[in-house]
């Protein structure tokens, strides 16, 4: 067994060395270098497509999904080795995808065989880009108060309403969406639908954020027809799917606390020399950041072995996002006036300050820090309501 794993490690290392383009082993310079795939993919560098396609063909964009659904079919131990070897070579993530980090796990658990076969392989290969229709203008932290309605029209639903903070809705091909199918029950009146963003009646409007970018949208539904076959799990049972998916979303967001696979502008700046008080702050941050790295490894290992507390993603999300905000505050402080440049070539069009501002949403999106603390208190510490 251990021998098999060492063979797997050697083969994986050799394959990555042969197949990961050199450019994909350099640090990303900003959000624009991220690969998202989809029907109209955008690549800042052609190697992004090569890297995504090679990994996708091998199922290694989703190494632990079953091969039948486009995954790599790897065991937890093999998946861990792949991750370690990718980190060793400083490989970029071949494919960022809400399909991978959020919808996929929910479909694997709640989807019909037909739904899995239709959607999962396309997610794995980066062919379809997904967005998440959760928050509404009057349903933020109180998500289950959502009002977007889906009326029964025989073999399909008619969806009407509005979502907000829909990440990349204007660039997504499909949406997984929470809708109300029963007004008499709050959590028990929600269903989980999948539909094409090209459907008639869907429109999006990007929201300009403090970072100067518009990653979030308002999304409007005006009599959108959605086949009932696109509902995941039973009618009015969508909250179960929603919560399960949120666990995975929180897991993904917590990963932000780890920083990138290669290079750390905060440490680079510290090496050039910073005042002793800032140095001390960075050093103490490093303690928490490296400890959290161990926590992430522990969490994934426990999760794969079925040993993790079901509410542990809330702890990961809370800690990881607060850490990420702290990292960017320190990075800005260490960068001084250099990191204030908003548009220059030298600053890569203000990558540092825009990333810093972007992180402020980390402790809001996917459930605020305060919501996570509520969940930890009630579900893990068993404190009363």
């Amino acid at each position, binding site marked *: 067994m251990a021998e098999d794993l060492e063979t797997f490690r050697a083969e994986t290392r050799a394959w990555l060395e042969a197949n990961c383009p050199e450019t994909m082993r350099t640090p990303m310079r900003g959000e624009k270098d991220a690969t998202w795939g989809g029907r109209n993919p955008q690549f800042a560098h052609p190697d992004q497509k090569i890297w995504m396609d090679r990994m996708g063909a091998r199922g290694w964009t989703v190494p632990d999904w079953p091969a039948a659904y486009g995954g790599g079919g790897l065991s937890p131990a093999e998946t861990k080795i792949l991750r370690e070897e990718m980190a060793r070579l400083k490989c970029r993530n071949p494919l960022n995808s809400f399909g991978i980090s959020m919808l996929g796990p929910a479909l694997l658990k709640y989807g019909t065989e037909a739904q899995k076969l239709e959607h999962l392989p396309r997610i794995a290969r980066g062919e379809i880009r997904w967005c998440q229709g959760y928050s509404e203008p009057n349903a933020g932290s109180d998500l289950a108060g959502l009002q977007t309605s889906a009326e029964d029209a025989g073999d399909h639903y008619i969806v009407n309403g509005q979502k907000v903070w829909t990440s990349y809705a204007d660039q997504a091909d499909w949406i997984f969406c929470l809708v109300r199918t029963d007004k008499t029950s709050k959590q028990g009146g929600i269903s989980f639908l999948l539909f094409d963003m090209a459907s008639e009646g869907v429109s999006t409007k990007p929201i300009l954020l403090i970072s100067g970018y518009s990653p979030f949208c308002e999304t409007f539904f005006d009599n959108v027809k959605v086949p009932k076959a696109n509902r995941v799990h039973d009618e009015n049972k969508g909250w179960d799917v929603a919560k399960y998916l949120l666990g995975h979303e929180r897991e993904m967001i917590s990963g932000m606390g780890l920083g990138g696979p290669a290079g750390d502008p905060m440490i680079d700046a510290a090496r050039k020399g910073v005042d002793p008080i800032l140095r001390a702050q960075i*050093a*103490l941050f490093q*303690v*928490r950041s490296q400890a959290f790295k161990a926590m992430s490894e522990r969490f994934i290992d426990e999760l794969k072995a079925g040993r993790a507390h079901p509410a*542990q993603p809330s702890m990961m999300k809370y*800690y990881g996002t607060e850490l990420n905000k702290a990292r960017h505050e320190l990075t800005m402080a260490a960068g001084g006036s250099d990191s204030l440049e908003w548009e220059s070539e030298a600053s890569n069009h203000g990558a540092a300050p825009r990333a810093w501002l972007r992180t402020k949403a980390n402790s809001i999106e996917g459930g605020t820090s305060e919501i996570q603390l509520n969940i*930890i208190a009630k579900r893990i510490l068993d404190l009363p309501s």
Partner: protein
Amino acid sequence: MPLYLTDEQQMLRDTAKDFVAEHAPVSHMRALRDANDATGFSRDLWKQFAELGLTGILIPESDNGLGLGHVEAGVVLEEIGRNLSPSPFLTTAVAAVEALKGTPHAARWFPGILAGETVAALAIDERAKHDGRIEMKAERSGNGFRLTGAKQFVTHGHVADLLLVAAATGHGTTLFAVPTDTKGLTADPQRLADASLAARITFDGVEVDADAVVGEVDQAPLARLLAAGRTGASAELLGVGGGAMDMTVSYLKERKQFGAVIGSFQALQHRAAHLYSEMEVARAAVLKAQQLLDAGDERATDAVSVAKAMTSLATTLAVQEGIQMHGGIGMTDEYDIGFYMKRARVLAELFGDSNFHADALAQAAGY
């Protein structure tokens, strides 16, 4: 290797949990303190540790020990921490054994450690802050060395049979195994804030043979000894912090004010949930350090510093939140939570505090 305890390690944890909670609960420590006990721990308890094989946890099987690793030693230390059990386990069975392992000293000292008769102490620190500077001198004298200088914060130093002493030898630091009955050595025990005893020790021209050297002259295996000590102290801190947190969360479910248990108030829930998060992260850091140390991985040095710093920070938070959320009763001597605060402070200081280790990480990262 997955970052959680194996089935065997969990079984050991269950055994250690039951054993320590039964034989050395907080009331045991309180009784020793109230009696102004001059030893600082129970020798009977040390024997019982030996009967379970625990004093030989890191001693190789070829030397009749259990031949286990730092993960297993940490499992025991966490329970010692959780129960605030006074014990020479950390200095003797972990740090000293790690330093003596594979040297000629093993044959002389391991049988006594295995029997629960021998106690070892570490004479490293010379100043109030652990800083790695060794100024105590060991000069060549006859076929051996003459030791002159002073050490402090030597836990169990006044009752130890064996002292591991770091001294400057011209071109580096050398570690000596010095029996405490050697002439010229004076131990002055000091009661610390947590009621434990640590000695200030003076070496007034103490003569030792050349074979007292552990390892090579000028090349003290201090890194190994300290890595073991720091990792062990981290595990013990985890127990102290975890014990304080558990006690506090229980109290939140019992204490009523405004007609409700105070644990139903969001202000306290958020403090408790934040504390839980810090302790979980600290636990991961400790296990990572233990596993890397056991694997002989070069990344262990950084991981040990992360573990010691993180457990010091998290446990310091745990005991502060513990007293705050207990309210006035937490300030009373009668209630145990205050003991946790005192123990945490001592362990946070031992082998370098969070600032010392954060600085070490910064230096290793090149800034």
